[in-house]
């Protein structure tokens, strides 16, 4: 239980309310990001997804109940070059027309201590679903908090890059996905 006190200056009153739990529920999309890093001919490159929606419920005291879901608009991808942006929404890569959304749905969260966690979940891209595990840190300050984590996928597991693009010597198979989610407490109204 956490006590919240507000000083009401006008009346000189100290008013304390009891909040049942600090549940972080509201994701601030504008301050959050989903980015990725990969190698092309040995050259490190990175990009980001400009549009995604995240739903989340996280109470540090009730880890078992934590839930997260992130839906990414794959067409909002920015690889850093227009030519590549036009290419990767196409059939051989994300096939954004048929599979407009890539999603991550959490299946569990394990506390590793020291604000570190391990999140597991199902990542679905282009109609293919794989289990992923990501180390996550959570830093809270007041009624705000931020999750940071990253994990690496193999693009060919999701058929991202078919045909000639299955050549992983040119565009590497490993894609590191990084996320930074800024969340706010939704105070319970009890």
């Amino acid at each position, binding site marked *: 239980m956490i006590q919240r006190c507000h000083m009401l200056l006008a009346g000189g009153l100290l008013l304390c309310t009891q909040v049942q739990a600090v549940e972080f529920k509201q994701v601030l999309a504008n301050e959050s990001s989903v980015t990725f890093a990969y190698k092309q001919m040995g*050259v490190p490159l990175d990009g980001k997804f400009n549009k995604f929606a995240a739903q989340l419920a996280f109470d540090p005291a009730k880890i078992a109940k934590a839930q997260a879901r992130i839906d990414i608009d794959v067409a909002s991808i920015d690889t850093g070059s227009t030519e590549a942006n036009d290419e990767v929404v196409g059939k051989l890569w994300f096939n954004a027309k048929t599979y407009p959304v890539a999603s991550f749905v959490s299946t569990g969260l394990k506390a590793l201590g020291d604000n570190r966690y391990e999140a597991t979940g199902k990542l679905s891209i282009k109609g293919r679903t794989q289990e992923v595990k990501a180390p996550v840190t959570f830093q809270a300050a007041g009624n705000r908090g931020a999750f940071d984590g990253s994990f690496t996928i193999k693009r060919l597991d999701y058929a991202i890059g078919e045909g000639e693009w299955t050549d992983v010597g040119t565009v590497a198979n490993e894609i590191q996905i990084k996320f930074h989610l800024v969340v706010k407490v939704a105070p319970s109204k009890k």
Partner: protein
Amino acid sequence: MNTIITRYNTTAIALHWLVALLVFAAFPLGMYMHDLPLSPTKLQLYSYHKWLGITVLLLAVLRVVWRVTHAPPALPDNLSRGQQIASHVTHQFLYVLILAVPISGWLMSSAKGFKTVWFGVLPLPDLVGKDKALGEMLSNVHESFNYLLLALVLLHIAAALKHHFIDKDGVLLRMSLKGERS
């Protein structure tokens, strides 16, 4: 004619022809790769082009170092003052361009957000940050420098052939791969 020919030394001759060979590879590759549709081949060719170009830059630096530390062999005395100046100016410009062409390519790559990793192993620093407008500007600079280089190389070759076949003054032999090394 039996003018005594003084030749460039082995280092200078080797560097000259190595740079020539690499420029003759990098130039058409640059022209060709540019208009290809995006494909793994295109990405590979871009990288090969950059690796070749950076190799030219390295060799060009060596050439400039050689040139400032060594006096080139004296020109045969059949050359008029005007010819001597013309050849001197052309050579200076060629040195500048074999440096400026790859440097503009390197900066362009950085501005376009692509780090240059020489032979996929050695990352070169990005001397300019990612900046789309700058990238496009440098792409034009790279292209213009290349056309200037092409024009000067053609002039250079024409002059060498003229000396060899018309003047028959042995100027070409000074840089020839065949012949006695000094």
